[in-house]
């Protein structure tokens, strides 16, 4: 065991992994995101999106957010993307793969997106000082428990987000019903 590293880990100061990991994951995420929006075949795009999602999940892990990582993998990669693949198989993409990928106003869209990018860049350049660390990074080991406390509250006390959490479950219920009704042939 490396005592120095261990001590650093316990204090929560050191990065979880080397910067190389960050650059590799960030590169993977961005490149596959680029593929998502450029690939002709929707299944290929979906596979690229899965790579993006998993890279982003790994980035969460580097940000000491293991629970979000788990949720991202379970819900996004395991759930939503399977749904996407199902739908892609059901709808006809044979035809769309022979058509134009981009709509007629794509220069305008690209220009708008570039403007947005410029906005982001200027914000980052000017407001660099805003993004310095303000607090102690949180320990990773009790991440799940702390999130649970925020969502469900502790003994006898409602959590900060309990109400929002219940609303979210209601939203999901509505979404399930909506999706079922929408896809049913005859109601």
């Amino acid at each position: 065991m490396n005592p120095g590293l261990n001590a650093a880990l316990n204090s929560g100061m050191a990065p979880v992994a080397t910067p190389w990991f960050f650059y590799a994951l960030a590169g993977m995420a961005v490149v596959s995101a680029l593929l998502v929006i450029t690939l002709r075949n929707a299944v290929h795009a979906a596979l690229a999106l899965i790579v993006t999602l998993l890279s982003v999940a790994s980035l969460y892990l580097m940000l000491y957010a293991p629970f979000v990582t788990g949720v991202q993998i379970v819900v996004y990669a395991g759930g939503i993307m399977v749904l996407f693949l199902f739908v892609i198989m059901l709808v006809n993409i044979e035809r769309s793969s022979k058509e134009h990928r981009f709509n007629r106003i794509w220069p305008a869209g690209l220009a708008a997106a570039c403007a947005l990018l410029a906005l982001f860049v200027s914000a980052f350049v000017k407001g660099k000082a805003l993004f310095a660390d303000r607090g102690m990074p949180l320990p990773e080991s009790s991440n799940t428990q702390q999130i649970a406390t925020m969502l469900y509250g502790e003994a006898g006390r409602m959590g900060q987000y309990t109400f929002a959490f219940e609303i979210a479950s209601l939203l999901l219920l509505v979404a399930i019903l909506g999706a079922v009704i929408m896809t049913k042939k005859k109601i």
Partner: protein
Amino acid sequence: MPNFIMSYLGSTVTPGEAGNQFWALIYVLIIFAGVSVAVIAMNWIERKALAHFQVRLGPMRVGPHGLLQPIADAVKLMLKEDIIPAEADQFVFWVAPLIGLLAAFTVYTVIPFGPSQAVSDMNIGILFMLGVSSLGVLGVVVAGWASNSHYPLIGALRSSAQMVSYEVAMGLAVVSAILMTSMNASGTGTLSMIGIVQAQQQQGVWFIFKFFPLGLLALVIFAIAMIAETNRAPFDLAEAESELTAGYHTEYSGLRWSLFMLSEYAAMIAVSSIAVTLWLGGWMRPFPNLLHAPAWDFIFSLFPGLTFLGLAAIAFIGTARMPSHSFFKIQCIGLAVFAALLGFIALLLLVAAVAGRSADTSLAARFNEGIGYVYWFVLKVAVFMYLFIWYRATWPRYRFDQLMKIGWKVMLPISLGVLVLTAIVGVIAS
């Protein structure tokens, strides 16, 4: 002794937790090789056991009692012509088995073979396992789609629908076990795989026996869901030979097909490991709470050696019973060498067990302890693996609508009920 070996042996946490990348890598390699060997062994055992269920002999020609058959098959599959259907999506066709394989093997990083015998102890261990193993469904869907053929597509749709719907019941069963981890003084549970076993250790009960029969029910639900999850009989509709020829991998052959098989068996071992970790006390030996005297420790530490001794004895008997024809000479020698190897391992383990008893802090004791953890874990997993074979030999196959009916109308309500009851009983008990 080099420093890095000692550094591991002195540690009581997993390499991942200790940030010991060297040992983590070694662990990954050991687990990868171990799982591959286990899959090969499972292949042989399944064929032999299935054959004996069905009054046949099974593989007998390649090696003594067909022991080398899986290796011969692996070589054959690798040398086979690599066929990609003309209309298939080449890239996706290639990638699909790899997705399944990655999903099946990645979960092994958090499987605890012992309190420090895991690559890493993730804070979200069980969530990670469920999530990553559910990624396997992507490989199936994509394989069926990429083949550009009807049978694979139907097979893929079937199996993905099946996997997704049984994941729900499976997840709820898992949650009820996780709920049990929180029933201690502090009231905080854990998602960590090692933490779950340690919770069982602290509470002095395997979760299968906790709140009887709630724990048992949860395990039964999980055990059923995991069969569906891994597409095994009687839920093997995706590969229903008589209906869809071979399901989603109909168009696959050679190496890529073997990758599918490898990931299927690896996934079987992985889900069995989850079941063992969550309900059967993981690496713990039987009755650590009742039979806790040091003498019992010693007796149980003899088990690995005795098991190998038994296997060696079986191999020796097999050698003795070989026909004395000259044709069988090489096989006879091979089996004898194999038996001797097993016997040697047995001797080694027994010596370690005896040596580990005398000195409590010695290297031998540490080694012995580790062997014991891995042995009990693997033994429990092996029971589940045997059940997989047994089911396959005994039961016909469910129909798709029946499968869905069972998943949503039977398993889901029961698992929900078990979850709610576990919570209620837990609150009352505390």
